[in-house]
């Protein structure tokens, strides 16, 4: 009788464990929801976007992969993204990546552009200060990205580093796949001149970033 009761208890415990395991599996499955279901929700949330805006809702391959891996893709995917994004980078035809650092500072300070609340024709800014420290005197900077204080000075104002900085602004993921930074050139969010100006703001010895 006593043995039977022990057996019963063991069975009950096993059932409970089994249920717990099933629940845990269910939770994991819930986290990996069928992308088709997510797409249906997305479609239902943006039923009739303004003309030309559907492309903002749909993900490109890089956005899709980075989202699926929560910005930490396995090596093979990482390399695929880097190669794909690197192929999109277009350097200025005149061969120089350095523009006017003063204009670059305005781009770095400006946070408007591309929002549905912006008036048509609004000149977009890079909003660099939202995420990065840049010039020492500007205290209102964000911390989502690394500090860029003395960016050019640290790199000895090297021409190859300037080119690399331009490439990073054009397409951050050509350097760091799944980087949080917007791909400013790839999306045509900033113009070539604006990207040159920001590069100068980072790399020019006269720029307050390097003072």
């Amino acid at each position: 009788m006593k043995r039977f009761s022990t057996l019963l208890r063991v069975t009950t415990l096993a059932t409970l464990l089994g249920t717990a395991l099933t629940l845990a599996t269910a939770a994991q499955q819930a986290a990996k929801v069928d992308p088709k279901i997510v797409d249906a929700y997305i479609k239902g949330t943006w039923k009739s976007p303004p003309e030309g805006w559907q492309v903002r809702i749909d993900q490109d391959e890089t956005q899709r992969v980075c989202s699926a891996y929560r910005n930490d893709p396995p090596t093979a995917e990482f390399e695929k993204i880097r190669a794909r994004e690197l192929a999109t980078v277009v350097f200025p035809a005149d061969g120089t990546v350095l523009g006017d650092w003063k204009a670059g500072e305005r781009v770095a300070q400006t946070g408007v552009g591309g929002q549905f609340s912006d008036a048509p024709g609004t000149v977009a800014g890079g909003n660099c200060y939202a995420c990065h420290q840049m010039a020492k005197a500007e205290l209102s900077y964000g911390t989502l990205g690394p500090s860029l204080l003395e960016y050019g000075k640290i790199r000895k104002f090297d021409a190859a580093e300037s080119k690399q900085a331009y490439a990073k602004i054009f397409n951050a993921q050509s350097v760091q796949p799944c980087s949080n930074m917007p791909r400013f050139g790839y999306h045509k969010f900033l113009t070539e001149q604006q990207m040159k100006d920001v590069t100068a703001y980072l790399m020019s010895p006269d720029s307050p970033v390097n003072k």
Partner: protein
Amino acid sequence: MLDHVRQGTRLGWTICVSVTLTVMLLQIGTAVAQSADTSEKEIERYRAMISDPFSNPGYLNVDRGELLWKQAAGTKKVSLETCDLGIGPGKLEGASAAMPRHFADAGRVMDLEQRLLWCMENIQGADTKDVIKRRFSGPGVSSDMEDLVAFISNKSSGLKISLRNDHPKEQEMLAVGEAMFFRRSSISDFSCATCHAEEGKRIRLQGLPNLSKPGKQAQETMGSWPTYRVSQSQLRTMQHRLWDCYRQMRMPAPDYASDGITALTLYLNTQAAGAEINVPSIKR
């Protein structure tokens, strides 16, 4: 008449508070120049000072919301007082603390705003077109939805956010909400997680809560909506907050009271489980 006197008194308070706020904000402006830490503390101090029913203008919305809740309207000329927000017809205490939730009568998971629209249409026989048009208040335009949400959410003040999430549709919403939180898109490549997945980060000087994991930051955020936005001089709901996030993410405006926004809200409220609700709060 008495109502008018009462409203007049409240308005007097609001004007008085507005002047005080302006002076305080100027003082805070000076503090911001000193350091981010100091400004955070100053904002916290100022928030504490004005966060009471007699100085938070959001309580005007609470009062208006109560009138709207009790007012007969629609083709059926009845009030919303028999609307079931999940815990029984007309029961308000704790209702919003357990939302979004699945409603068997509608066969859908709904947030508070979706449910109110459903009750207006199904109980009052009302045309919600105008209410939806005025979903977000602005200069000279009041919002019935903001007022109703303020009134109903205030009935859960002091209680804790607690979602059941035991219906398959609620679980689907939770999973979709999480996927949407991490979904990168648009010309900025942003997702919600770009700004809200790490501790101690900020945009310019504005601190960012980490909403990617359950705990204190998610609790403090979700427990304080709806809120009175000093910078906009309006009460704002979670629908508006997420609409504004997508604006900053350079996405098109999400449809009001759409299922994607409800999925995100359900996910965020799940992260915020156990949060003490204190609404309407007051924010910058």
